[in-house]
């Protein structure tokens, strides 16, 4: 390393060094093959990720592409359960990031995971209403009111499972009009103004911007989703897979996740 760099560049290098060190530490616990050797990271990396990670992973992917010219990060964002099904049916992918541990377990139990999954973020539910709150929603009990039009996630997908926990803990019977196939579908119903409220992740509320308003509620603390990430045994691009997983678990990744509204693991 040259001594004649500007302070800023040096600082950048230092940060990157720390990140790399942290990432190695983080992944060492997962039994990852030693990734300190600077193998050429190039080609295409295919990341299967929960729908709620769409915005933050897209920007992390762009960052990784900028760091490694010749690298192309492709995403498949969908409900974690759908992704888990695709993976167990042999869909070619390098990395899987799930919105809950249940769906990660589905994949892990299938024996197609090369590193033990590492938790990298948490997410809590939030009530989301269209801008202006036309349904006058104030708390979770409004989502148990049959007179309101409510969208929840289907119990088969993580956000729906979390919603069930929240209602159970609050002793309320939810009154949904539709059970959506993933969290973004539930959010879309709100941004279109077709429902009075939906229960989505806090991060989805932030990502939706001004079209919606979020309402936090105390019962959300009863259902905190942990987000695990892993690389896959049959990854066509193992080096790329490691690089992406390392970026996500690095401090830069943590910062991006925190900015998007995710909690620390």
């Amino acid at each position, binding site marked *: 390393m040259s001594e004649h760099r500007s302070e800023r560049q040096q600082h950048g290098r230092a940060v990157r060094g720390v990140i790399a060190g942290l990432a190695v530490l983080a992944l060492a616990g997962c039994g990852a093959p030693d990734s300190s050797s600077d193998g050429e990271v190039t080609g295409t990396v295919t990341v299967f990720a929960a729908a709620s990670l769409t915005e933050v992973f897209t920007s992390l992917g762009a960052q990784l592409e900028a760091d490694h010219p010749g690298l192309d990060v492709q995403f498949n964002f969908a409900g974690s359960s*759908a992704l888990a*099904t695709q993976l167990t049916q042999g869909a070619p992918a390098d990395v899987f990031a799930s919105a809950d541990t249940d769906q990660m377990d589905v994949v892990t139990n299938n024996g197609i995971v090369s590193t033990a999954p590492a938790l990298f973020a948490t997410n809590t539910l939030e009530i989301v209403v269209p801008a202006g709150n036309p349904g006058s929603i104030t708390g979770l009990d409004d989502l148990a009111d049959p007179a309101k*039009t409510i969208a929840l996630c289907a119990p088969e997908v993580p956000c729906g499972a979390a919603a069930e926990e929240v209602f159970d803990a609050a002793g309320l019977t939810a009154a949904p009009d539709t059970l959506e196939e993933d969290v973004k*579908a539930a959010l879309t*119903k709100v941004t279109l*103004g*077709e429902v009075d409220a939906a229960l989505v992740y806090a991060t989805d509320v932030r990502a939706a911007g001004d079209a919606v308003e979020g309402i936090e509620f105390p019962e959300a603390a009863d259902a905190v989703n942990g987000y695990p990430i892993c690389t896959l045994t049959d990854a066509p691009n193992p080096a790329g897979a490691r690089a992406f997983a390392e970026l996500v678990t690095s401090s830069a990744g943590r910062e991006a996740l925190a900015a998007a509204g995710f909690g620390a693991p």
Partner: protein
Amino acid sequence: MSRRRPRDGGVPAPLLVPAALAVAFLVLPLLGLVVRAPWSELGPQLTRPGVGQALRLSLVSATLATLVSLLLGVPLAWVLARSRIRGRSVLRALVTVPLVLPPVVGGVALFLVLGRQGIVGRWLFEATGLALPFTTAAVVVAETFVAMPFLVISVEGALRAADARFEDAAATLGADRWTTFRRVTLPLVAPGIAAGAVLCWARALGEFGATITFAGNFPGTTQTMPLAVYLALQRDPDAAIVLSLVLLAVSLATLLLLRGRWLGRGVTG
């Protein structure tokens, strides 16, 4: 429709091989479902709550969608085939847009028009407090939107192939156009209408994207079989296979029954 055809039995070799490949391509996935089906769990899976409900909802909504399509689609097909209005080809392209539109996009488009914030739906909601989305009626609307073009295309084809001289003869004998349509044209293209209706019903029965988007998914009101299959696939692929087989068996049985009863040789040759 009943052109004379070569006698049965002699399939030319250049047709035989691709035809056999087509059969394999279309039938093997169905075989896959049958082979992978968890036959030992069939009973418990079938008697799970909600299966009968979803099946009934599917059959009722697909049938209603087909009736609406017949009521509106046959007249539209006549306009496309027989009228001399200008811009007919543009009109034809426009009304067949749902064929190429991804159904999910169709569902969003329906929201923008018929949703409670939609161009038309807003009036209804403000005047009556009623909203179409998330109701069984919305399922019928979504299925009709996606399936009606199949009926229109079939009936239009039948009308074009029908001999217009019968209609001319009826006109010379003093029948007005409405009488000619009812007494001559309709019977003439009946097999084409039946074929179109079957196609429309089948498409409506399998409809997924527009339905889950516009009507949502709720057991008993809007969860049709394809939606139940999709959600079952998220947690329990075996249940999804069983549900798919039920839907397949019921639709095949219905189609075979109809073919024997009503469609006769006009459709099956």
